[in-house]
């Protein structure tokens, strides 16, 4: 059992006053067989909020600020216990995790790449866990981690064409491959030790257990990871979503810190 302390802070600065600002936040870590929240403090800088759960089981803080304002910040802080030997259980995972989304659709280029791997390693006779592990390794070695080439709406096929991207792109590409192979797989957003921003990886379901793979770091998910949300792709896991009236540019500052409590 490992205990991690985390702080997740986000601050928005708007260049002009905005109003009728509605927000949804997915910032609270999940309670699962694998991770248990020990302490939790959340702070949203206005108090007219409420809580809900989305269709994928993610916890959400939602609310609105109607009066004019030019800053918005929120923070989640707490301690989480991770049991590295336990896995999230789900005997009947949602069937939609088997189907591609717009962001995780395959193209010809990707299909050729996957077919080649499949022949080289004989995926047809391997168990889903091993296929996933192999796909993770292959993505890690063929991709280059570069910021600024892709954005949040870049699809797996575009990022794969450039062979460049960030954790979101790595995860989308891996999901596309896994689902093409018929493996039930989902997108995960969370935090990781030593990473200053939020992180994304994937989980696959085999025999009712969810296993995490991090293609950006070529790593099976271990006790250094705290999971916040999951869904079909990035769009189901957006950390902070807002809708407001006003003509303003926004600057976002995110700070994430995860350290082990000894």
């Amino acid at each position: 059992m490992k205990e991690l302390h985390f702080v997740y802070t986000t601050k928005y600065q708007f260049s002009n006053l905005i109003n009728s600002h509605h927000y949804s936040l997915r910032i609270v870590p999940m309670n699962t067989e694998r991770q248990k929240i020990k302490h939790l403090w959340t702070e949203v800088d206005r108090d007219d909020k409420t809580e809900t759960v989305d269709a994928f089981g993610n916890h959400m803080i939602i609310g609105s600020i109607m009066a004019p304002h030019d800053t918005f910040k929120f923070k989640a802080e707490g301690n989480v216990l991770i049991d590295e030997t336990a896995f999230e259980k789900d005997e009947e995972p949602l069937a939609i995790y088997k189907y591609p989304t717009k962001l995780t659709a395959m193209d010809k280029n990707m299909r050729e790449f996957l077919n080649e791997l499949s022949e080289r390693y004989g995926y047809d006779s391997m168990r889903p866990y091993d296929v996933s592990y192999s796909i993770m390794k292959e993505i890690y070695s063929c991709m280059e981690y570069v910021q600024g080439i892709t954005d949040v709406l870049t699809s797996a096929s575009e990022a794969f064409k450039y062979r460049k991207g960030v954790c979101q792109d790595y995860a989308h590409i891996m999901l596309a491959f896994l689902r093409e192979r018929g493996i039930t797989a989902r997108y995960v957003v969370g935090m990781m030790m030593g990473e200053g921003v939020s992180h994304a990886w994937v989980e696959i379901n085999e025999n009712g257990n969810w296993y995490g793979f991090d293609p950006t770091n070529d790593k099976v998910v271990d006790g250094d990871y705290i999971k916040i949300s999951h869904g079909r792709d990035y769009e189901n896991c957006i950390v902070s979503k807002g809708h407001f009236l006003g003509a303003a540019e926004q600057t976002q500052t995110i700070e994430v810190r995860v350290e082990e409590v000894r």
Partner: protein
Amino acid sequence: MEELNKHVNTVNHLLARYGVRFGIYKNNTFKEQLFPFDTIPRIIPKAEFDYLDKGLAQRVTALNLFLADIYNEKKILKDKIIPEDFVYSSSGYLPECEGIMPPKGVFSHISGIDLVQGDDEKWYVLEDNLRVPSGASYPLIARDLCRKASPNTFSHNHIEDNRNYAELLKKTMDYVNTGGINVILTPGRYNAAFFEHSYLAEKTGSILATGNDLVVEGDRLYYQEYDGEKMQVGAVYRRISDDYLDPMTFVPESVIGIPHIFDVYKKGNVALLNAPGNGIADDKGIYYFVPKIIKYYLNEEPILNNAPTYLPFYEEDRKYVLENFEKLVIKDVAEAGGYGVVFGKDLSKEEVADFKNKIISEPRRFIAQEVINFLDLDVLDGDKIVKRKADLRAFVLTSDKAEVWKSGLTRFSRNPDSAIVNSSQGGGFKDTWVLSQ
């Protein structure tokens, strides 16, 4: 009836004055046009309507059970009655609605079922509309005006009074209302059916609102008066599509929706008529399975027939479709409103070949149907009576049970060669008389 035909111009003139219009988009510009009314009604004898009534109520009851199942237990998929591909690959299936059971378990409160009558006098269901079916107000207001123009026609014939539509609608809203007022949510006056939204609001005693008039606070939805006073809303008959309903959950660019209304709905604090996610049940691919859906949930034989339909998804059907392409009508499952409908016989050789390739590469995207020879209806064209193709949109309102409105919207094609009768394709309409004896 001849009496009534003498008044065709008067009635159309009155309709124009009352603003009964139909707006359409053509070449990216919005054009509002009159929806021409034909005074010769479609007449349905009592026995025939009794049959339709039973069949429609059965169909809508089963479709409501299907929706509740798909977004919750999914028994019909586990029992392999419908291949799950048809649900999860459909744009009508909304994962955001997973696990939601709407107030009183009703998903499709107002259903518009499109039927045609073949020249063998058999009725066929062509399409189920369970999202935002429009059109009930047209026969309603036309009947009103006809009654004024020719009161004798209605006192001398035994015609079911159709003025109870608003009453049925109000009952439907009240049944699922979670506490608060009833609201009809319109995207605004540039919508094709704006006339209908305001008409129904007035007739049901609901408040007509746009997205800006409604606001979410905490876990509730409120209607905001001009003076800032707020009233809680318990039911929203929304006339905007799922995509635009809530920018926080669906299309973020929507300016006609209400941020967080979906969260209030999810908590059971407001009813949305119709429920979001209904698109999966009126998907053209799912249409094929409706007879199976009826048998599965109700353990009854379907009373109404589908038009003979083929799913290229199944190899056997695909073979048939490719071999008989020229005599079939092909529909793109993603399109609505008469768009994406192609008659095999109308295509050139190259177009046929292209289309067949599309079917082979994307079999899930299309359905094919036998062309039904419609029973043509009489339509007044100047002084002459001509024969035109027509369909019938029947309205089924579901509260504690499914009730069929004893009227309906009969649409006809003004073009003698066209069998596409949608109002967005420039057709006209007729009143539908259901005889009471």
